[in-house]
């Protein structure tokens, strides 16, 4: 049988979709900086 993750992931705890999107964008900003994409 396949391992784990039978529930519908991803799951958010203590956060709205919007709050996650903001934090995720910040992480992408760090990635873009590392990649030399400075827009």
């Amino acid at each position, binding site marked *: 049988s396949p*391992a*784990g*993750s*039978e*529930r519908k*992931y*991803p*799951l*958010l*705890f*203590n*956060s709205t979709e919007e*709050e*996650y999107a903001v*934090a*995720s964008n*910040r*992480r992408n*900003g*760090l*990635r873009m900086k*590392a*990649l*030399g*994409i400075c827009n």
Partner: protein
Amino acid sequence: MGASVQDIVYAFLETYYQRMKKDPSKVSSLYSATAELTHINYQIDFDTSSDILPTIKLTGKENISKFFTRNNKKVSDLKAKIDTCDFQTALHSGILILTTGEIFWSGTPAYRFCQTIVLQPNADNKNAYDVTNDVIRFIPDNWIGFPSTNDVN
């Protein structure tokens, strides 16, 4: 009819994150007397220009209690996205959980992490579980060797 391991794991995660938000000083009651916790070192300010956070290792419920109480403001602001959750049966009817995902706080980027938690049935109440081990590790993007677009174009 007992709950499935999957249901126990999900209920535990819900309790774990809810308690952090609502009452950080009571998070430690989820841990066993001799539990070990490797968690965010909140005494170091968040470095929002880094994609990882430093961790610290604590032993015993009392130290864990002090840790969550002292850092209660940051603890209650923790938000999590769990991407994957694997589990196995551990020794003595325990449950081993391995999650991956992202955690973040107001004003921080999302930090990618993996975390292992071991639950053991409570000696007094077989329907309850105590955390005996809890380790988090942050995962950097590891751009080493990756060409920047400046090199590529």
